[in-house]
């Protein structure tokens, strides 16, 4: 069957089964930037923004979010036009294998929109739904702080 979604500001009709998660539907319809990690809502690799709030797409049944606004990491910034968060993640060396990075960027984006000047503790809390097996989180937290500093210095917002 098919259902309509608004993905990265574009209306799409996607093929899906009624028992499928949003993660599964997105990936099989070409949105492979949304990664499948644990499939249990604990690793954060599959995070997307649903109505501007971060959710684990593996814990959302796709049929329940028809016609809702969904943003993947490519909706925040693309390869040719990256968001500041993505640029700073890359320059700060905040990725190694890169598998957790889409989810981390989504969480960082979500955090900085709500709280443009987070403390270290608030950054750790804001990324509490994201696991990374490679980096030890140090550079990731640094990247978020650096982004926050740039936003403050230039009076910008996360978008």
């Amino acid at each position, binding site marked *: 069957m098919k259902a309509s979604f608004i993905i990265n500001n574009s209306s799409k009709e996607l093929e899906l089964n*009624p*028992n499928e998660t949003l993660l599964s539907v997105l990936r099989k319809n070409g949105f492979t930037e949304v990664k499948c990690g644990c499939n249990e809502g604990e690793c954060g690799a599959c995070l997307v923004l649903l109505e501007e*709030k*971060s959710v684990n797409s593996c814990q959302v049944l796709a049929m329940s979010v028809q016609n809702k606004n969904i943003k993947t990491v490519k909706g925040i910034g693309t390869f040719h036009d990256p968001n500041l968060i993505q640029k700073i993640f890359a320059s700060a060396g905040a990725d190694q294998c890169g598998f957790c990075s889409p989810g981390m960027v989504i969480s960082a984006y979500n955090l900085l929109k709500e709280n443009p000047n987070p403390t270290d503790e608030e950054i750790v809390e804001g990324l*509490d739904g994201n696991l990374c097996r490679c980096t030890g989180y140090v550079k990731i937290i640094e990247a978020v702080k650096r982004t926050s500093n740039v936003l403050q210095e230039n009076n910008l917002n996360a978008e």
Partner: protein
Amino acid sequence: MLPENLKWYFPSNIAQAVKLISQPGVMLHAGGTRILKTQSQKISALVDVCNLKLNYIKHNKHTFHLGSAITFGEVIKYSKDNNCLKMLGSALTQAASTPLRNRITIGGSIKDFPLWSNLYAPLIALDAKVDVRGNKAGIFSIEDYVTEGIIKSKHIVKEIIINDDGSLIWKVKRFALLKFEYPIFNIAIALKVKNKIIQDAKLVITGVKNRYKRLKHAEKVLIDKQISSETFSEAEKFIEPKFISDYKYSSSYKETAAKVYFNDLLNEILKDNL
């Protein structure tokens, strides 16, 4: 795995939704996190609440009405932005993670008193009420909702009603080794204090035998007394929650941990109020 031929319904009012869920195999869907955890093949259809307009927080002076489809994340944000419902906000912050809290709903965490719910201890301590629609409709105290069989009937939770004028002295704590683990127990302490005298006290623990316990003997000791180490030491003699052993933890371990946690929380209250 959920069945491939799963049916979906999107009713536009609560009466329609109640009628649908009265059929066997038909479940309510709000955030959906519990449904995805259980993945039961017995579910033949889901009734989505998105059109029922249950995602609200309204207040009239100190009475708060939380629609059952409001998420933990929304309650936490509301409590921070409006400097209210702090006890509830604090309890919910201890559960799961930011993205999961953006899906887990208040109603889903109350209905059927799930094992992972952090909600029951603070709601009992706050004397919250549940507005239920279905076979046994009405407004019930949380304790009656659990103990009077309403929880087992086919019903929809419309909203939770909480009176919170911000004057309570409170503490909430969840005991789990990891944030994602189901809690071993949850504790909530709420004291109504006027002119330094404790006028009312609620000491609640969930995760015990029979799911939850109000520590009424300890509460009685506190009432009409001043907040002091002597008062609290006296009350602690009556804090004896009973647990069941499981494959991870013995009952005596849990009982000891609960007493330590109560002691810690009471000491924090003492420190904050001297």
